[in-house]
């Protein structure tokens, strides 16, 4: 077996096995002695060291394994993980607006306002670094309090929370009147 043939056989074995393969196993499989195999491994290593190779050879306690070169990770990431497009859903926007205006606020109070369990939404907003824990409420169960982050201010272009548009006082008054009217109308029946 020539050096090239031996190297090819070793390459094929390492490729197929995936895991590391001991030098002795390589000797057995190719029916060669240690020195030949070592020489072929060296030859392989030189081949992989060239720029045109995306594969590398690592040695682990007299065993060898093929791996991709770490410079290749940026390409692998694009194939292995299709980047997912993240956007704020309506549920997330609602939750964010409640936290922004009512902070510091507990999960339970968010849920009370939205009328649905909002744990997932709050967690996502924390993941996105738009919302953070501010401490705990001094009440039974000591629930976590949430508020907005600096990233929130940055993303929404506000310098401070004071700059949040205030709730339109007129509109709030309108709501109340509407509600009162409805009550009287219904009571008239």
């Amino acid at each position, binding site marked *: 077996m020539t050096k090239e043939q031996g190297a090819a056989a070793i390459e*094929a074995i390492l*490729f*197929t096995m*995936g895991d590391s393969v001991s030098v002795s196993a390589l000797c057995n499989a190719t029916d060669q002695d240690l020195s030949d195999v070592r020489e072929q491994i060296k030859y392989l290593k030189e081949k992989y060291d060239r720029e045109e190779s995306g594969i590398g050879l690592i040695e682990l306690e007299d065993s060898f394994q093929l*791996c*991709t070169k*770490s410079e290749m*990770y940026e390409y*692998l*990431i694009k194939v*292995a*993980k299709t*980047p997912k*497009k*993240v*956007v*704020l859903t309506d549920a997330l*926007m*609602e939750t*964010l*607006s*409640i936290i*922004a*205006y009512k902070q510091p606020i507990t999960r339970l109070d968010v849920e009370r*306002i*939205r*009328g649905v369990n909002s744990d997932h939404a709050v967690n996502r907003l924390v993941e*996105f*670094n738009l919302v953070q824990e501010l401490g705990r409420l001094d009440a039974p169960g000591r629930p976590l309090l949430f508020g907005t982050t600096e*990233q929130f201010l*940055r*993303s*929404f*272009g*506000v310098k401070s929370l004071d700059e*949040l*548009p205030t*709730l*339109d006082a007129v*509109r*709030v008054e309108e*709501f109340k009147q509407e*509600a009162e009217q*409805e*009550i009287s109308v*219904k*009571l008239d029946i």
Partner: protein
Amino acid sequence: MALEVKLQAFEGPLDLLLHLIDKNKIDIYDIPIAVITEQYMEYIRAMQKDDMEVTSEFLVMAATLVDIKCKMLLPKEVNEEGEEEDPRAELVEKLLEYKMYKFMADELRERQMDADTHLYRKRNIPDEVMSYEEPLDYEQLIGDANLAKLNSIFQALLKRQEDKVDPIRSKFGKIEKEAVDIDQKTEYVKNFIREHNRFSFRALLEKQHSKVEIIVTFMVILEAMKTGELTIEQEETFGEIMISSNVYG
């Protein structure tokens, strides 16, 4: 003709026919139908004797062969163009098509043997790649959301919350569940039956107020009817339903 060869399994009637054509070294385009039919029938008989499953496909082919044999004994049929039709033509076509795919199957099998010597690799994504998280693109995340939108969403939420409060019901103190005691009701209806002997269903229902009471009353009547305590009459459609007691009357 004696069958000396051990019966081999055929992949259907066409396979058997091809085998016979091959064995007799005859031209597929010029099948001596009489000979082939004899041999085919011989096989079918042998198959049956060996208790092999002779499927309908083999029998259909036998019938087809006999049919062709008959047609060949009769004067030739002539088609629209005035050409003589060979009764074997359709069979020959089928046989040829089948033979072609059988041939290609062998060809493919050879290729498979070559291809089998290649080994592949399992997917093996490095941990560094798997654990990588793309940095969040805030511009994309926020999209067209802005402060005004945040504000209007919050306002809408508040309004929705107020709407949720039913202004009338919220003024009520407590709403109590209407309890209908089925045993009591049953007893009441039975008493009614005992007291009235013969009465209209409507008269009975007039004493009931809620839906549940009506349902229970109806069920008591049905039950009493089943056990023969009551007889029910109705003279015409939508007419008065009259109930009379059999037990207490």
